[in-house]
């Protein structure tokens, strides 16, 4: 049984994703880190499927679909901002504040 290590790995991946979000300033990179988080969760689902049956696999598909939708929307938004800023560096995106 590789349940423990699998869960641990997914936790590590998730944390890496979080850390990436926290540390990086590029919108695209940030988005990729978020995708990493989602995939870490997918790993959890898959790992747990060993325990609880196929429900986990179904879940993974759901998540992948959602992630795809998010990616589509997200990239569009990033594009839109790029058109305004000529950059996707989040440091520069602070028109709204206070």
């Amino acid at each position, binding site marked *: 049984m590789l349940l423990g290590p699998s869960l641990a790995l997914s936790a590590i991946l998730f944390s890496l994703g979080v850390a990436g*979000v926290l540390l990086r300033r590029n919108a695209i990179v940030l988005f990729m880190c978020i995708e990493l988080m989602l995939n870490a969760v997918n790993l959890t689902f898959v790992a747990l499927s060993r325990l609880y049956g196929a429900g986990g696999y179904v879940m993974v598909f759901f998540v992948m679909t959602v992630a795809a939708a998010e990616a589509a929307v997200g990239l569009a938004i990033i594009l839109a901002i790029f058109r305004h800023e000529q950059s996707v560096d*989040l440091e520069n995106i602070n028109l*709204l*504040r*206070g």
Partner: protein
Amino acid sequence: MPVHLVWLTVAFPLLGFLVNGALAFARPNARRAVSVAGVGSLVASFVVSLGIFLTVRSAHIVEPEIVKLWAWLPVDRFHIDIAFQVDPLAAVMLLVVTGVGSLIHLFSVGYMQEDAGYARYFAYLNLFIVFMLVLVLGSSLPVLFIGWEGVGLCSYLLIGFWFSDTANASAGKKAFLMNRIGDFGVLIAMFQLWTTLGTLEFVGIAREAPRLLQPGGTAVTLITLFLFLGCTGKSAQIPLYTWLPDAMAGPTPVSALIHAATMVTAGVYLVARTNVLFAMAPATSTLIAGVGALTALFAASIGLRQYDIKKVLAYSTVSQLGYMFVGVGTGVFVSGLFHLVTHAFFKALLFLGAGSVIHAMHHAYHASHSHDDAQDMRNMGGLRSYLPKTWVLMWIATLAIAGVPPFSGFFSKDEILTAAFVRGADNPWYYLFYAMGLAAAFATAFYMARLMVMTFHGENRSGAAAREHLHEPGAIMTGPLIVLGVLSALGGILNVPAALGGHHALAGWLRPVFAPSAGYLQVEELRGSTEYLLIAAAVLAGVAGLVLGYRATLNSRLLPAREALPDTGFARVLANKYYVDEAYDRVIVRPVVGFSRSVLWRFFDQGLVDGLLVNGSARLFRGVGWLGSQLQTGQVGFYVLFFAVGAVWILHVLLG
């Protein structure tokens, strides 16, 4: 006349007040109507009073007759009616108030004839009589207090009668405030009485006090001390006397009625009314006598160096009130009241006489377009040839106040001094009070002689132009003077002591009133020789004062006020009344106002409470809000950091 009609004595002046009050707004120049309403109501009241007096006399009313009008403050067990109490004391006071009041009203008709506020004047004067009668008739302390404060109100209005002058308005306000300090005492005394005795009616007090109070105990001493505080305010004793001289700003008849004959004696009346309490509190009594003696001497000494004729009389009044308090403080309530009555006669006479002089002087100056002070005695002199009737009558009053036999003042003053001396046997302080009283008697005679000389004798100093216009006022003003002159001369008959062949008529009359206190006061008999010695001493002091005052003043070089040199040395201290007013102003008034303004209002109210706490907290919240909005940097990274901190916290709570 049935006793229950006593309310009529109040109703007539009240009616007069209403009529005159209405006329003051509607027809201020209807002088005849005003005179009729003003004087007529008083005369009617006097007639009723006389009827009541005769009834009390013939029916031998000993127990107070309570005439209830309506329930005023019925609150649970506390129940106060608007009710009048008719007994010998009330009857005497009724006569004095309405009698002297009528005379002064009559005098006013002449004195105020040309004043624009004629109707207003009579309205106030009538209102005063209403309250004064409520004061002397009230069957309980709260009802008395209505009158007590009411006369204060009228005094305020009448002192400030010519309100366009700031000084007059201020004097009225000062009088009211000083009186209020005293009223504070009366109120506290009432509260304490209610808490201890459960009653505020005079009958109840007389009944319950011996039962519930320990003679000489703390409670009764406190009560009487607070009551006496009230008396010092109303009757202008040290330390609250300073308003009375200022009160001379009012029209002179007002000074005669309110500030000499009636209102200011209310304190003495109050002590007499609640005599049982004072009899049970020897410590307070001693204090009263001491304060009275001190006031008598102190005020008399100031009177020695005043130039304003009314100021001299004012200080004289303060001084004579001191005598009365020596009397009631010594336990001889009858003597105090006796002096009250005789003083009402001669002091009213003196004031009205002074009024007559001022009236003449004022007219003369007015006619000659002079702006000199019509009340300054330095501008008078030699007036006897212009105002002969006034001159004679005022001499009668002077002899009376100086205590020269057989004028009225002699009897009353002598009784007080004798009693004080006698009391000295068991309380040596009273010897001192006696000595002070004697000295005051000398000073009194001295300044009265000075007043008479400066006003009526010697050369006239009012200026040639004015001199031609000086003349005696009409009969409407001299008439009352003559009546008062007779009373001043003969008033002593009321209470001639046994030593001089009398039988204490007034004392016998008032005995039921003072019966409750009799048990607490030991009456000591005097050996005849001592009594005659004391009489001789009193007379000597008076006569010596008169003679010395007469000669000293006549010999001094008098100049009209504008040419006069300022006083020097101790005389200057006296002329400036020992600087007491200034001291009060510096030590009390200004610090209180300054403290209120800069510390309480500016610093505490506006600065601390409103500024720092109220507006400050608003500003603080806004400031914190601004800081909070500075967190909102617009940086996604920062937001995520915040998010992460929150996440860590949540997980920490759940896992920890």
